[in-house]
């Protein structure tokens, strides 16, 4: 056990914990925009009830996201001081923009959503909802610009060990950003769609909140049915960038140890890093080349082409990628079959499918987490690909007891917060839309207080 390993573990733990909440709120914010617009243009009260209901859930997840995000803003300096000193001129401004836009748009317009229903006119209220959604989107954008720069650094020159930005346009408009940012955004929208559809399915199964449940189910499923194929396309485009810019990561994802022409696609296997081979391998000939280049006969490189010190570990990217894709395909199946039946008004009769949709809510979260594992573990041994190794990025002089102490501290606190947060969201969801009421004391800066507005009678939901 080294301080380097513990620092990586700590960053992985804190960032994985964090990403759960924003990936949900980004999608949820857009869903709120849709609901508010529908409520305004159709005048149907069901949309208003749904809006008020989901706004509260948005509040809790938003609060947890903010709280867990604060740690990230400091961890670059505490554990990765060499990284932040060397690449601070690039990463610092990007993260400054992230927190500034987040604060200016999300926090302030969220205040309007909570307080402003009676004080501003409906179009202004809709515009505020849109601003919150744009705020979460911009936040995600800056984070993706920053991470994409770490994956494929551009627009900098090295001056005495510092990476000085010389072309911000190249950094922000890098093609890698514009493939990975939509991929993440779509993942967030799908997360929102599946959580909404799952809640609707839950209500239908319990025979409660009929109108709201049916609306949630339909809207969630239709959206997912449309977005899921687009997401698969952007996933493929992201894979193309990995193939061209990070061949070692690509080989690890594909489970390919040696050069092949034409290359087979390893569907499933147990990679053995010691013997540099796969056990129990299930392969489809030629498909590997086709996936990589859209050609029948392309030569694809294996991991053993790279010197040992430049190789990422294979196990985590290999399995994470397959779990991610598996979740995606399962979601596609659920979304299409559910939408088809909902379109024909037959979904209510297929209780097994309703159960499947209800239980599908963890899928988008699992897909997002495993997707990030592929991206981040696959980038190893580099922190900034090709420029700065992870072992050289860590704070010099960091000791094991120090990092162990902080890891234990955050582990304990996060577990406690997570349990309470999930409990609150569960209570809110159980209470249902009819019981939704916005608490007067919840403020723009206190999204968590929204959870306090659970009515006393939530146990007796009608």
């Amino acid at each position, binding site marked *: 056990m080294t301080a380097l390993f513990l620092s990586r573990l700590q960053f992985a733990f804190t960032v994985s914990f964090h990403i759960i909440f924003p990936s949900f709120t980004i999608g949820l914010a857009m869903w709120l925009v849709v609901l508010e617009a529908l409520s305004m243009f159709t005048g149907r009260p069901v949309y208003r009830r749904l809006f008020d209901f989901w706004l509260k859930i948005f509040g809790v997840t938003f*609060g947890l996201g903010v*709280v867990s995000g*604060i*740690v990230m*803003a*400091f961890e*670059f*300096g*505490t*554990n990765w*001081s060499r990284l*932040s*000193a060397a*690449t*601070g*001129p690039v*990463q*610092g*401004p990007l*993260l*400054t*923009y*992230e*927190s*500034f*836009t987040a*604060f*200016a748009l999300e*926090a*302030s317009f969220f*205040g309007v959503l909570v307080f402003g229903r009676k004080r501003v006119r409906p179009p202004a209220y809709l515009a505020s909802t849109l601003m919150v959604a744009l705020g979460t989107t911009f936040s995600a954008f800056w984070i993706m610009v920053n991470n994409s720069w770490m994956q494929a650094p551009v627009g900098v020159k090295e*001056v005495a060990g*510092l990476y*000085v*930005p*010389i072309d*911000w346009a190249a950094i922000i408009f890098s093609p890698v950003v514009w493939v990975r940012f939509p991929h993440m955004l779509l993942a967030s929208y799908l997360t929102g769609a599946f959580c909404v559809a799952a809640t609707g399915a839950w209500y239908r199964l319990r025979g409660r909140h009929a109108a709201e449940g049916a609306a949630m189910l339909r809207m969630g499923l239709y959206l997912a049915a449309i977005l899921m194929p687009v997401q698969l396309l952007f996933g493929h485009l992201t894979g193309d960038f990995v193939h061209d810019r990070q061949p070692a990561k690509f080989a690890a994802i594909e489970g390919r140890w040696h050069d092949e022409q034409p290359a087979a696609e390893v569907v499933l296997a147990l990679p053995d890093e010691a013997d540099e081979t796969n056990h129990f391998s299930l392969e489809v000939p030629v498909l590997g080349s086709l996936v990589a280049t859209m050609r029948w006969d392309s030569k694809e490189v294996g991991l053993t082409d790279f010197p040992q010190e430049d190789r990422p570990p294979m196990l985590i990217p290999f399995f994470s990628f397959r779990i991610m894709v598996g979740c995606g395909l399962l979601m596609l199946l659920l979304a299409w079959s559910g939408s088809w039946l909902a379109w024909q008004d037959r979904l209510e009769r297929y209780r097994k499918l309703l159960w499947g949709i209800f239980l599908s809510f963890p899928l988008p979260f699992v897909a997002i987490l495993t997707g990030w594992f592929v991206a981040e573990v696959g980038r190893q041994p580099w922190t900034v690909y090709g420029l700065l190794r992870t072992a050289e990025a860590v704070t*010099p*002089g*960091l*000791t094991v*007891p*120090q990092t162990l*102490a*902080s890891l234990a*501290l*955050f582990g304990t*606190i996060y577990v*406690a*917060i997570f349990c*309470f947060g999930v409990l609150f969201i569960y209570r809110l969801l159980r209470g249902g839309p009819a019981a939704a009421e916005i608490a007067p*004391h919840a*403020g*723009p*800066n*206190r999204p*968590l*207080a929204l*959870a*306090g507005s659970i009515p006393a009678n939530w146990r007796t939901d009608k």
Partner: protein
Amino acid sequence: MTLFWVAALALSILLYVLLDGFDLGVGMLFGLTRDEALRSRMLASISPVWDGNQTWLVVAGTVLFGAFPSVYALLLSAFYLPVMAMLAVLIFRGVAFEFRHKAGRSRPLWEIGFAAGSLVAAFIQGTMVGALAHGLPMQNGAYSGGPFGWCSGFALLCGAGLCVGYTLLGAGWLVVKAEGEVKRRAERLVPWLACGVLIFLALAFGQALAEDLKIMRRWLERPYLFAFPAVGLAAALRLFGARRRHDATPLFMTAVIFAAAFATLALSFWPYMVPFDVTIEQAAAPRESLSFMFWGAGLFVLPLVLIYNLIAYRVFGGKLSNDIHYH
């Protein structure tokens, strides 16, 4: 450009200290009473603003990262344990604030968490400032002190001093916001706390002289530095006045003391950012980074955030009305 970001950083740190200072102070005062009625009035006084106050810490942190990455890297890694503990405590304190009223049997846990969290966060912040003034162990521009290299008697003294200082701010805030018993108690505490602050400042001054800290020589080189402690002292003396014309006087005077102390430190550090090792010029990010931040974040977003904060304080201004209880 560098100067703009130094000013922005100084402003966000000062705002954080003043605003979250009274929050943390109220948190510590909360721990001093067991009376439920008083406690809920105290929480009500900070509930609309405390979270917003804390965001200045994030603003200061990201500005430091963006504009002065080498100092960000140096300080955060040098203060590894205190920073981690402070973040954990601030998170726990925030969650305790929200969960307290929802909890049943676990309520005492959240209450202790809230009070103790405030105390520990204040102590850590004071210790870090003290360590910076004392001077960090450095070799060739890099921190060389290990996990506890920042720890010194002087730093710990500053930590304890800041706890008293924040409590004074908190008491001042309660005098402004509260009425009745809460206000009377706070008013009674103000002179004692002011006394405590002065004693701690005198002790710190004596200790600095005894250890012959480098920073003290600055005072001989720059006699104008004495102006700030003089202003602070004058403000402190106003706190002892038996009759006050205005409820805002204690809070305002305490804020003046803090601003004076802040200015004293900042000007005795100048032009160093990490005293006597890293200057502001050395620490500043390349011009390309600073101007990229300036044309968006600096010129538009920062003023927006300030205005937004002002509006929030106006909306929640005035005395707490007696009929509105927190939750």
